[in-house]
């Protein structure tokens, strides 16, 4: 009889834990809709693997919101040729193995026609072999060019780090800087960045003289910033995503480093402005046009697409979309466009995506080719600064744009 008490407590606890876990699961997978048995004329299924919890949450959450919004819009329009489009969202918890598991489930159990995601580079790289071996079109929303280098079935919508770095080097050359101090994300997003700065900067005589790393969930940046301060480069680059990028920015200003600072395109959301606070004032970053939608010239080719999305998103969620929501929008539109044009034949969808030309999206204007599954050039980016806690289009866009 002695056993009853602990057994009851343990059972209660187990039930509580499992119950909560189940709640969390249904919450994050909530965009799925009905999910009835799929038959030949059944719904078209699009799977999405996003970093909804964990270090990439500030990317994955707005992406989920954007996808859910677009899916419900499409639903109201009556789907594609009368076929319903079902969106199944999986949370990879910002981990590589979570992403691999999620895409396996989507491909094998849900039998989706196309996969979107992941939000960040590491998880996207983990999904790539699954997409390639199952021959299923995949559109990543992440940045690192390695995701699509030499890929057959994988595409991506976020601006390549290569074009971002080209844009940054252009700016540095304009400003007369020749040495860079780099503090980069130690995960996939920051992988190879230093080498790329050196490679692209070589033509302008610009090189990285100090490189520091930080974990994506790091909280203290004193050590990295002290080392950057000692390196005394002409300009420093923080390459990460919030909240880490925001905390790094705070430490940069707190330690009184005098050199100007640039951030990457990983910071295009309100979370960054909130975490960095006053310390963000005056930094320069190459970002998609979305964050400065209200400041774009009227003749900007992307203005209409961006403004329409901003309006719909803001009406639904009471806050403006981040650039990451924009990456998700582009991924969704490219997918829907392909499915509308050629149906659900996977090979045809892939070929259609590869042949896209001058498709105007949120992150830029896409032109894919067999060699380039990213489709954006440095013109997709504008230089943005922070003024009074808000994004501001830099008046002098330099020679790059």
């Amino acid at each position, binding site marked *: 009889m002695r056993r009853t008490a602990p057994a009851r407590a343990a059972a209660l606890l187990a039930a509580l834990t499992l119950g909560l*876990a189940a709640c969390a699961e249904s919450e994050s997978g909530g965009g799925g809709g009905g999910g009835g048995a799929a038959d030949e004329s059944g719904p078209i299924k699009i799977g999405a693997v996003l970093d909804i919890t964990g270090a990439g949450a500030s990317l994955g*959450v707005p992406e989920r919101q954007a996808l859910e919004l677009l899916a419900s819009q499409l639903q109201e329009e009556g789907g594609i040729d009368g076929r319903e489009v079902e969106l199944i969202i999986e949370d990879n918890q910002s981990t590589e193995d979570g992403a691999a598991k999620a895409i396996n489930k989507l491909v094998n159990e849900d039998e989706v026609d196309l996969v979107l995601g992941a939000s960040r580079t590491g998880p996207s790289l983990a999904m790539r072999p699954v997409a390639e071996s199952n021959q299923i079109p995949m559109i990543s929303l992440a940045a690192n060019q390695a995701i699509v280098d030499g890929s057959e079935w994988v595409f991506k919508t976020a601006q390549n780090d290569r074009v971002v770095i080209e844009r940054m080097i252009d700016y540095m050359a304009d400003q007369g800087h020749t040495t860079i101090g780099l503090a980069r994300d130690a995960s996939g997003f920051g992988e190879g960045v230093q080498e790329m700065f050196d490679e692209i900067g070589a033509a302008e005589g610009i090189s990285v003289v100090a490189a520091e790393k930080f974990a994506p969930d790091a909280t*203290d940046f*004193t050590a*990295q910033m002290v080392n950057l301060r000692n390196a005394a480069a002409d300009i420093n680059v923080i390459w990460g995503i919030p909240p880490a990028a925001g905390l790094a920015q705070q430490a940069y200003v*707190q330690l009184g480093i005098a050199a100007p600072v640039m951030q990457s395109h990983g910071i295009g959301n309100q979370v960054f402005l909130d975490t960095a606070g006053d310390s963000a004032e005056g930094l320069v970053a190459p970002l998609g046009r979305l964050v400065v939608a209200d400041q774009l010239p009227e003749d900007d080719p992307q203005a209409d697409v961006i403004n329409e999305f901003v309006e719909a998103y803001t009406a639904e969620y009471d806050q403006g979309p981040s650039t990451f929501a924009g990456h998700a929008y582009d991924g969704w539109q490219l997918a829907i466009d392909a499915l509308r044009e050629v149906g659900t034949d996977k090979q045809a969808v892939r070929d259609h995506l590869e042949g896209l030309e001058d498709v105007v999206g949120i992150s830029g204007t896409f032109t894919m080719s067999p060699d380039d599954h990213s489709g954006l050039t440095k013109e997709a980016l504008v230089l943005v600064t922070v003024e009074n806690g808000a994004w501001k289009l830099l008046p002098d866009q330099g020679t790059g744009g």
Partner: protein
Amino acid sequence: MTDLLQLLFAGLSQGAVYALIAIGFVAIFTVSGVINLAQGEFAALAGLVAISAAGGGMLLPAAAVLAVSTVAIVAVVMERLVIFPVRGMTTLVSLILTLGVSTGLKALMLLIYGPDAKGLEPLFPGAFDLAGVSIRYQELLILAVAGVVALAVYWFYEKTLAGKSLRACAEQPVAARLVGISLSRASLLSFLIAGCVGAIGGVLASPIYFTGWESGLTLGLKGFVAATLGGLVSVRGAVLGGLLLGVLENLTAGYISTGLRDAVAFFLLIVVLVARPSGIFGRHAEARV
């Protein structure tokens, strides 16, 4: 030199947070042999409660008090529901039970507060320069409050009757019972203390290090390592262990490689467990608590 001081100072304030978490581990372990893996979640929950209360317009000190009392209640409820009913508690059983609580609390925090990590508004924002070392006011606050709390806990165990009865439970459970000390009440009290110090640590840390639903994992691990450095049974050892860990982490990140920062704790843990299981400051089983 300036760099060394800068790294030392950043390490001390980070270490003070570890120290507070470590005190919580020690408070509970000495009384009942329970290793409370939800200790880090106490800190994370406190940070999140404070952030949402302050976001709702509450004054910062009031939000901090609310956060600490909420977590104190959670800790006490946890003790009554999960620890108290178990007869013949062993450290292994306690690990499994508290791991369950930790997972449950994390899921709850994710549901209530969402996935984003946020920072509490600092009570005194800004920083000042002292001999080239930049010091944030919040870091001074962390050190000051952690110092006061550690002294208070120490005083409680050494000078008050309740504290002495807790030490008695730790040293001689049977004898303590014979002289009329309630082990049940002692266990409850130890969870109350652990909840309070963990929560204070969590609220203090939030403005600088940010708090998310997952923050408790790292904080709990580092706090546990700090407590182990002190032999798991000494408040003084836990405080010293926490400070040492914070400083070593920062020096390693600054002078060796930033990638090794989080490895320091586990390296230390292995070395200590192999070479000096009673803690690096310990004098074997004497002077518990």
